């Protein structure tokens, strides 16, 4: 290699690196997902695809520009809100959009396994200033209030945090400084710190969405390297199950075991009163109150609705009376703690969901999704009225 070729190659590497940084920055701002409806598996980490906070924010801006005059309703939460099992035409968040009407814009960033302050809650915080008339509706099971920095989608939180796009929250900053002081965090902090300057995750996310993916995944097998934008919603091509008691029987005992292991039944969180009723222990209440309080900055809590989504009554009927009482107590306490924490809370446990409105223990069938949408729409309208940001007639 001649000296001039060598110099050209080295300069080319530097130029390529700088060019990639610029393209990553561009992708972060402009790479919105077209026709986005939800984070189905081909658009989230289950298939080794990691949308960045900037890309989700860009998608929101594309669908509902800040000047559009609409009330923005961002959905966060877990697979129940993600509409797991529901095909695109029957997706509950589309029903919610219909119920709310043209004055609102609903965008669903909930994802399987996400906590109440993940995904959608991150985007909500990022856009809170640009969208003063926005609401967050997120769901969880009572007792599950994992902080976003250590949840299954923590990468998204850190992405936004290091890019400096989250609103200031001194309590959170102090907590994070404490938690991340350990050596084990160093590489992660470097990753996120460098990404906030060089935008390599945004570049990869943009390329993988528009052009080609680089990671083989068992979900896609031979189609792993296709652009994610060319892949349909995973649920649309999946053979669904008709909800029926026979189908629920087939899910036993695995799903019942899962229900018994859930926070709502976990005996560690409860104590039995002299009258035979179960209540949460003072310790668990205090822990959970602290966890709920830390989910979002105080200023955004009044614009947030926490929905405690229900369990399938068919499976609940298989629990013993003590276990059922613990579930009831869990929903009661969760609702109370969320309200005391400054959020709006909607418990669906006492709403008349039928067994056949579920696809399994917790996920809703299209019919259940409709019922959920109607309940949430009413709650959204109430909060919008309370916040004085009703859409112009």
């Amino acid at each position, binding site marked *: *290699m001649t*000296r001039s070729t060598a110099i050209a*190659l*080295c300069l080319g590497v530097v130029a390529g690196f700088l060019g990639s940084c610029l393209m990553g920055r561009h992708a972060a701002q402009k790479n919105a997902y077209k026709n986005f409806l939800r984070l189905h598996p081909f658009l989230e980490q289950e298939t080794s695809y990691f949308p960045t906070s900037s890309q989700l924010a860009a998608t929101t801006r594309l669908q509902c520009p800040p000047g559009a005059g609409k009330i923005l309703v961002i959905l966060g939460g877990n697979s129940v809100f993600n509409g797991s099992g529901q095909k695109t035409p029957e997706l509950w968040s589309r029903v919610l959009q219909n119920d709310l009407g043209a004055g609102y814009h609903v965008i669903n960033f909930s994802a399987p396994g996400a906590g109440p302050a993940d995904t959608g809650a991150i985007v909500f915080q990022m856009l809170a200033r640009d969208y003063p008339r926005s609401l967050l509706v997120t769901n969880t099971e009572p007792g599950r209030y994992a902080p976003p920095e250590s949840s299954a989608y923590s990468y998204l939180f850190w992405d936004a945090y290091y890019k400096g796009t989250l609103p200031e929250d001194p309590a959170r900053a102090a907590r994070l400084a404490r938690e991340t002081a350990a050596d084990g965090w160093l590489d*992660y902090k*470097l990753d996120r710190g*460098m990404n906030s300057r060089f935008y390599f995750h945004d570049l990869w996310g943009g390329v993988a969405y528009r052009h080609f993916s*680089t990671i*083989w995944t068992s979900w896609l097998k031979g189609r792993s390297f296709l652009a994610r934008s060319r892949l349909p919603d995973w649920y649309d091509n999946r053979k669904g199950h008709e909800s029926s008691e026979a189908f629920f029987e087939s899910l036993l005992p695995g799903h019942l075991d899962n229900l018994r292991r859930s926070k709502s039944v976990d005996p560690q969180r409860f104590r039995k009163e002299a009258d035979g009723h179960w209540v949460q222990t003072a310790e668990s209440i205090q822990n959970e109150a602290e966890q709920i309080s830390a989910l979002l900055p105080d200023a955004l809590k009044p614009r947030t609705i926490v929905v405690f989504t229900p369990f399938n009554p068919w499976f609940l009927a298989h629990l013993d009376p003590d276990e059922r009482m613990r579930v009831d107590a869990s929903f009661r306490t969760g609702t109370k703690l969320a309200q005391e924490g400054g959020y709006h809370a909607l418990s669906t446990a006492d709403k008349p969901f039928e067994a056949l409105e579920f696809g399994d223990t917790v996920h809703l069938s299209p019919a259940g999704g409709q019922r959920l949408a109607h309940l949430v729409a009413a709650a959204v309208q109430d909060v919008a009225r309370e916040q004085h940001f009703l859409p112009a007639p």
Partner: protein
Amino acid sequence: MIFTAYWFVAFAAIVFPLYWLVPWRAARLAILLAACVVFHGHFAGAAGVVPIVILALATFFAGRSGNGRWCLAVIVACAATLLGYKYADFIAHILFEPFNSQMAEHASVWLRNVLPATPPLAISFFTFEFVHYLYDVRKGRMRITNPVDFALFSIFFPSLVAGPIKRCGDFLPALHRGVSAVDWNDVALGLSRVALGYFKKVAISDNLAACINYYVPRFGSLPIWERWLLFAAIAFRILLDFSGYSDIAIGLARMFGIQLSENFRWPYLARNIQEFWQRWHISLSTWIRDYLYIPLGGSRVGTGRKVLNGFIVFALCGLWHGAAWHYIMWGVYHGAGLAISGQYRPLLGRCGAGLGAFFDRYPPVSWALTTAFVWLGWLLFFYPLPEAWKLATHLFVK
């Protein structure tokens, strides 16, 4: 993988420009040494650094003294340290299991309490390099008197984790040439090599690994042609993973102006097993040849002894890769391959000569047989014997 850690990226982004921008030889040596110390300290931690520092000091002073007995004592200490950290549990099981499985379990639990959860970082590579140095000192071939040279030979970070296994005689002149005269050419060639290594490792090998991990448990249910495809994927995965890592190491060293020896030369083009081992993990196979096979007698002994020596050194080569029986089986398998490949002509008389002539005349046949042998060996390398056998039979039977 250490080279894909963000810490390493940040570290490299500081160290390399600093090294290039400083024009003084001594300052470059100091920067390189400091970088190696920081790298080793960061990834090995105190528990990993202390035993290596002790062994390095012992090796350095024994080597500098030139005393053959001291050198031999430190060689034994190095080997004992490697055995203790990496193989104690395995050896305890071999010793106690046939007599009393409870005793074997007790020994295992005790060792787990006494020893760290993982052996010191790269202890196998350190051991091989120290043993090589001390052996050569004993033979009067070299002696390092400069502690900085020895420290850099010991903990030169590009090759620290996964080789190539260095030789003092090659490394030190390359080091001094690098710190004196690193140029654009070195940087450009190094960068290209690093990029190639990352591509092999991250873009191809890691994807193949994900694919293999998913499909191997379903191997029997795949169509035959897909099983063969997966079989090839297993073979290419280890080649690209390991040679990718070597490329990164060689490329990083080259960016300092230091040329390390090649570790892979298109091994799947080999037409017999000897040739395969001249192309695969060259720094290990030449180490084994020079420091195990030749001291055991090499080619100067009779055929039977030569074959036995081949089995011994390859069993040890297998064991070096990991403390499990299937690694030893893999080594013995290659020992057998070498014995057959090296001896069939004289042993089979006219028939052997005819067979040899046939292979010489039709290289694709000898290539295909060698490739099949080596690739089947990877099943032994990656999986316990029953599973490897099951996978191998599934290649041919429904």
